[in-house]
């Protein structure tokens, strides 16, 4: 019977050693969120590990996964974009196919919108807001409007294949149709939607596989034409909405962000693994600074975020499978600090 005793002792040992549980108790905060950076990290496909992190700028502390702490559940799979509009935060969670709407001050979820039309997933990708509506591109080929008062989907319009980037200029939406789910036959168009009629009114040929779009104050819409990741490289294309012309500016680009007249263009060269940021003056239409940061300060540049008056945060995705960093650069392009954050950070909101 000794054998049996040992066996059961062994089983009990294994059972208890497998029963360790993390005990995360969250104390609700009394003060609203302020003076900090809210960062969305998309995580990896099929791991349900998108997170929101809060960086408290007054004491430089970080709360990882603040969404789960507050709401008692996870964001889901591939939080792809996040915007702040009218006291609310809107998140597009692509693989989970949901839109999550949070109160800005408390980060409590106000509404969770399943984004499936006729029982088919839509995969929301990017967001833009205008006059009481948030507009969402989704991979099923639509742009959907959400009323920011009722928090309900009100209408949708068919666009091109697998739309990605969206921006607003002069009561119109500009949508980049990537066609990225047909890698051998990608889309090449940016569509203009008149917001009043909510119909497509114009189409621009911008080059293969357009991704992000952004507008300046002079009637220009900038598009990242991602190409085919081989000979057709990722470049900045400009649509002049004043005369309808499209120009490839030939500036290597994978993402960008704007502050006043300055367009910060980030580029990760996947063939040699280098990262660079150039600064483009939208008023003069010239490159102001060609190499704003040093390549050695960053491993995989995933995006940029203008911070305060003259600083820049570069998002470092590392190798996409390790947790990423926010790299802070001063006005002279010198690295001042780095903060380790979630897996594949993609969007930052600055709380002042």
């Amino acid at each position, binding site marked *: 019977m000794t054998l049996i005793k040992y066996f059961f002792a062994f*089983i009990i040992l294994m*059972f208890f050693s*497998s029963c360790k549980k993390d005990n995360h108790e969250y104390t609700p905060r009394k003060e609203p969120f302020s003076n900090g950076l809210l960062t969305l990290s998309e995580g990896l496909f099929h791991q*349900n590990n998108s997170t929101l992190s809060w960086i408290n700028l007054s004491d430089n502390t970080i709360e990882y996964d603040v969404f789960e702490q507050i709401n008692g559940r996870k964001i889901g799979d591939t939080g792809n974009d996040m915007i702040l509009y009218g006291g609310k935060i809107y998140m597009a969670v692509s693989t989970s196919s949901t839109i999550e709407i949070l109160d800005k001050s408390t980060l409590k979820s106000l509404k969770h919108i399943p984004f499936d039309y006729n029982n088919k997933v839509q995969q929301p990708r990017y967001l833009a807001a205008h006059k009481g509506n948030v507009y969402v591109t989704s991979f099923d080929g639509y742009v959907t409007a959400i009323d920011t008062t009722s928090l309900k989907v009100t209408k949708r319009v068919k666009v091109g294949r*697998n739309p990605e980037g969206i921006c607003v200029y002069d009561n119109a939406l500009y949508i980049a149709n990537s066609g*990225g*789910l047909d890698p051998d036959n990608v889309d090449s168009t940016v569509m203009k939607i008149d917001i009043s009629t909510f119909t497509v009114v114009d189409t621009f040929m911008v080059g293969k596989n357009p991704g992000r779009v952004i507008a300046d104050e002079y009637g220009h819409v900038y598009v990242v034409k991602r190409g085919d990741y081989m000979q057709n490289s990722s470049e900045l294309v400009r649509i002049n909405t004043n005369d309808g012309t499209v120009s490839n500016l030939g500036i290597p680009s994978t993402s960008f962000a704007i502050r006043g007249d300055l367009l910060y263009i980030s580029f990760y060269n996947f063939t040699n693994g280098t990262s660079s940021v150039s600064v483009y003056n939208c008023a003069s239409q010239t490159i102001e600074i060609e190499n704003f940061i040093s390549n050695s300060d960053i491993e995989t540049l995933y995006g940029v975020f203008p911070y305060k008056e003259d600083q820049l945060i570069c998002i470092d995705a590392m190798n996409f499978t390790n947790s990423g960093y926010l790299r802070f650069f001063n006005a002279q392009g010198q690295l001042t600090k780095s903060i380790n954050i979630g897996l594949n950070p993609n969007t930052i909101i600055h709380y002042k």
Partner: protein
Amino acid sequence: MLFMPFFIYSQNNDTIQKYEEVIIKGNHAKIEQHSTLTESLIDRLAPHDLGTLLQYINGITIKNYGGIGGMKTLSYRGLGGEHTQLIVDGFPINDPQTGQINFATIPANNIEKVSSNTHNNSELIPVSGLIKGNDVQVTTFDQQFSPTLLSARSSITLGSFGQKEAYLALKKGGKNNFISFSGGILDYKGDYPYELTTIEGKEVKTRKNNALHNYHLSLSSGFKWGKKKARHRIKLSAKMNYIDQQLPGAVVLYNELAEETMKTKNALIGANYALFSKNWKLIAFGSYTNRFLHYHDPNYLNIDGFIDNQYEVNALLGGFHLQYKWKDFFLQLGSDLGYDLLESNRNLGNPKRLNHTSMGKIKYNSTYFFVETSLFSQIIMDDNRNLEHQNTYTKIHPQLSLYTTDQLFKDWQFFVWYKPSSRAPSFNDLYFSQIGNKSLVPEESSQINLGFNYVKNIRSFTIRVQGNAFKNLVKNKIVALPTKNLFIWSIQNVGKVDIYGGDLNFIGGLKINQNWSLNLQTGASYQKAVDISEVSSPTYGHQIAYTPELTSNAMLNVNYKNWGIHLASLYIGQRYSLNENIQSNLLASYFTLDISGSYTHVLKNQHAFKLHVGIKNVTNTSYSFVRYFIMPGINYFIKLSYDFN
């Protein structure tokens, strides 16, 4: 019957098989270098498939993607599944498209023995099995000689979540020949509950899109001839397995609309020949394999609105392994030659591969030691002209081993061996659209092992303890990384992994009296497998993904007359879902316990009726080996079987 686990050769009726055994000098019980599950143990575990069984072999980690039908791949001592050679009834089984076998596709109901051999020096097996990191050998009922005129195996199983299974095998045996047929059918709904935190709080969800239908057939025959001077044996085999299944995928929060399906068809025909004489032994084999896979996703958001991919691999494989005994020396020569061709409706070209492994070995048995040295040559020729790729890779690998006999240490055996090997990139690694990389070279591994065996019989008590300490190194590890952006991954030869660890296996049996007996088989394995690819990487020195440091298993059987109680437990330690060892990637350890009871009624020593009732995952543990591939909780089965002879 009770001590079957300890005397493996007593399991089958094949007299030539006994003749094959290598006699280790000395007079102790035969020491096996295997970790083995025998027919009686397999029966008590009531496995769904080969993958479920292999979990109970020490050192093997099964990456388990679901219950019945969920993909199961293997990792042995931190080496990827591509470093393991599966050999079923003497035929090496390969999947050149993915490089590794999905062990869920191999039915378990006709399996009589499974063994895992890291360093096989006691059997003549195809040399492609000897060059790999380890081999898993499966012996089925269908392929064994039987002296009885007719024997049969049959069972009907009903289980939770719509499991319905039937199996029948018939064998006409005789002194010098046999012919057998076996067939099985499995139907499974797979709609098991699991707990998930959603917007409604903790909810009990049901696994969807998880049904499976599986049919398998096998036809075999064998002939023996010759006299004592030289005996010959030939076995012929034809097998077919068809699986039509839904793919539930990972549980994606808030999105339960998975509708993917997969159909798999595997067929093999082959012949095995063996010659045994006083000084010569030879095995030779030839096989043709057809593997067909059809994947369909009706909801993909591309221009077609779906993905429909079909892949077909045709493979020819043949080889021999010859041994000549001269005094205390054994000289061995062997060679395997394989040809694989993949066709698909994806843009993979038409890859062809010629794979040649040859071996020369000298073994010397002295009174106190036996020592073995061998040289392997591997030649891999890839040709995919449609994608402008041709490449030839050659490699020479030496192997060395030293074993003591029990003339030196009574009841003990100590051994040390060194074994390098390489695995070729799979066709998917090389050519899969966008991610494939034609400049890949084979992944290299080396293993050094120090071990011991202890076998002791004290009256009615038998124990066997086996322990190993090992040090492995993997270079040019083939890994998938997102290199362009998160959408576009690419396969690269970038990894380097340092692995060390040890395992301990205990088998004990006790016959208390005429009516009572019990046996216990338990093992624990520790493996530290750390990434040493790049010193500056955040993952340098971190445990590689999905490699638990500690795994353990235990099986206890208590028998009273014809009644039996069977317990089987598994412990899988903490592991990480990615190479970065941080809290957010940590997956909890888990423990599962299965309990079952059986009653066997034997009529006239020929007819055995058995009722086997069991509970799996008794503690209703919610667990997943792979992140969000949630496994079933508590579930039940009842199995009625009838065996004749």
